[in-house]
């Protein structure tokens, strides 16, 4: 049995965690820049140490937000056949689905392509701005949780491939013109990937005000309810 008391307190350089994949208790040593930590038992990725985690992530998040606005306001692609033309934006595609009677599908498509990425980017922006001057307010943690929730649901790269397949399907019938929106989505995908790679949540957690007050020991005491402890 481990003696818990033997774990030195206030040791910020070495963290003790339980692997989210197999629940194994282990210590994460300080990582070199660009290094990763994996669980020895199940291989789950525990932590990364990206260089310049907060600044770089912030820059990429701002860029991604701008590109997101472009991607949603400019037409994605246009179609020209027999003298008739049509074009659509991202939301326009979901809207057409709604008009055609598939409301649920339209809502889910809209969520996965627009709302989830928007939510993720907005939360990240606020979090990254707030932690520049620690200690960040406690609700930042809540925002980060929301961002984590929305991350798997923002499926822009699947969207990109889907558009390409749709393009090929339609290009046989009519002339298709790729719009600015399409390139913007492509850039957005790259930027989103960049954000996920360059962001280190551990940095944020180190700077966030504790819900239960100023405690900085590796093994804390859980509180019985939300709100500040004395």
């Amino acid at each position, binding site marked *: 049995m481990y003696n818990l008391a033997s774990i030195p307190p206030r040791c910020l350089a070495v963290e003790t965690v339980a692997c989210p994949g197999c629940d194994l208790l282990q210590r994460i040593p300080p990582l070199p820049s660009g290094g990763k930590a994996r669980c020895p038992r199940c291989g789950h990725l525990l932590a990364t140490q990206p260089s*310049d985690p907060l*600044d*770089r992530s912030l820059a990429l998040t701002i860029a991604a937000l*701008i590109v997101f606005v*472009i991607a949603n306001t400019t037409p994605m692609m246009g179609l020209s056949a*027999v*003298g008739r*033309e049509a074009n659509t934006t991202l939301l326009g595609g979901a809207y057409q689905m709604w008009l055609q009677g598939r409301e649920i599908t339209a809502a889910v498509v809209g969520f996965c392509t627009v709302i989830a990425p928007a939510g993720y980017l907005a939360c990240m922006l606020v979090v990254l701005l707030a932690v520049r001057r620690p200690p960040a307010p406690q609700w930042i943690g809540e925002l980060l949780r929301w961002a984590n929730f929305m991350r798997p649901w923002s499926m822009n790269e699947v969207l990109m491939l889907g558009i390409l397949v749709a393009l090929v399907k339609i290009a046989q*019938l009519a002339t298709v013109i790729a719009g600015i929106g399409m390139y913007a989505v492509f*850039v957005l995908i790259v930027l989103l990937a960049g954000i996920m790679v360059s962001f280190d949540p551990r940095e944020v957690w180190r700077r966030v005000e504790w819900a239960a007050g100023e405690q900085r020991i590796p093994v804390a005491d859980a509180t019985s309810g939300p709100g500040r402890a004395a």
Partner: protein
Amino acid sequence: MAEDSDLAKLPQATVVPGKRFRVSIVWAIPILAAVVAIGIAVQRILSEGPTVTVVFRSAEGVEAGKTFVKYKDVNIGQVTAVQLSEDYSQVEVKAKIAKHAAGLMVEDARFWVVKPRIALTGISGLGTLLSGNYIGFAAGKSDHPRRSFTGLEVPPIVTGGVPGRQFLLHADTLGSVGIGSPIYYRRLPVGEVVAYDLAADGKTVDIKIFVHSPYDKHVNPGTRFWNASGIDVSLNANGFDVRTESLAALVAGGLAFDTPVFAPTAGPAAADTAFTLYGTRAVAMKQPETVARHYALFFKETVRGLSIGAPVTLFGMPVGEVTDVGLTFDPATLDIHPRVEFTFYPERMVMRLSGKQEVAAQALAAGSEQKRYVVLRRLVEERGLRAQLKTGSLITGQLYVAFDFYPSAPRAKIDWSQDTPVLPSVESLVPDLEAKLPEIVDKINKLPLQAIAEDLKKNLETLDQTLKSANKLVSHVDTDVVPELKGTLEEARRAMAAAERVMKGAESTLVGPNAPTQQELRDTLQEVSRTARSLRVLTDYLERHPDSLIRGKPEQKFGRQ
């Protein structure tokens, strides 16, 4: 060493920690993104064209975000909104016009909805069945920009930019002419009717026409226009006349024009010159007589069959027209008899003279009244110039007035005391059977029928003997005369056959199975049925291969058809 201690005593330089360059290169990415976004937004704003509002009574097939505005087949804008007007009676269509076409939005620009239409002039807009309706546009010439328009319900007949000229015609009635009715010059269609409207005073109809170039240069100030619709059939003292311009004119109504020979030569008429529209070609091309003299005639017989416009002839040649057929009543003597007024055109008579005589006669006709009176009086009193009613056509009973010399007629004078000088007339030869019948019956009664019968018997006996000798003669005739007769008969038969052929020929041009009109009709019908057949084949194919409409017929791939 002294140097060492010197070295050690040297003051320590202050250490200034290097300022870490806080801003890393990664910030270039959001800056770049911001620049691109601003660039796109600016470009969008700069390339925004104006928004125009067009009001239609109904906007079929016009959809926001889908329908385009096209000019010369180029998209110059797109409809952004379609909504009812405030009083719910019209449809307001808002369209965003591309920047490069913004200069076209001027006061007299016109908008209309292009959709399949069937009109007198033909079928138009069928292409929109495939491509969807669009809003057509015709440029105007004004300089004043304008952003709100009233849309036309019907596409304009002539869109701006078509070379040609517009003219105005005044007509008594519209007749069978409509918008789009063709205009012919020497049977060629050279223009169409663009619009018509009642004149301000309500007494005439103003018809606007458009003649395409290069034919518009044949319209000069002396040109005459007439209504060439339908078939012109006239049956009058001159005979039976049938005229038609073309099948299209028959159906759609049409106008024609030509320049009469007597019109002064002049350059082409300016645009919007006004002309009068005449009813028929004859009326249109009639040379206006500059000199017209009015005279009257009294007749003591029935003038039934004499209509206004009936010709007045001199020795059979037309020199005037009847202008009025009425009665004159003398209250003192209770005398009522017909009074005919007519117009005499001396020019028509003068035209028939030759050379020097024409010149002299013209001088006389245009000369002083006194001299003319003298000539007329001498003709009437010395030569016996009288008017007589004659039958123009036994079928219709139309009469006309004929002047001739009757030396044996009782002496008469021109009555100059009336407003219109009255010339003398003689009785006509129109047989009045009713009056003559009792006379005839009387005469027959007076005939010595008995004596005639006895004479007849005696004569018959002599005749018998004559006949017997004649028989002998006939046998001689057989050998000599009959062959000649036969030959004559042959000729006569041949002549009749020829006449038959001529009649048949006449038939065939009009009515027969090979008549050209019928031939045309049949050809057209054949074309139509051929077209219908090929159309059916096409729709069959399309039903089986719908995407071939866009892709074209696919190449053979993977053995799949």
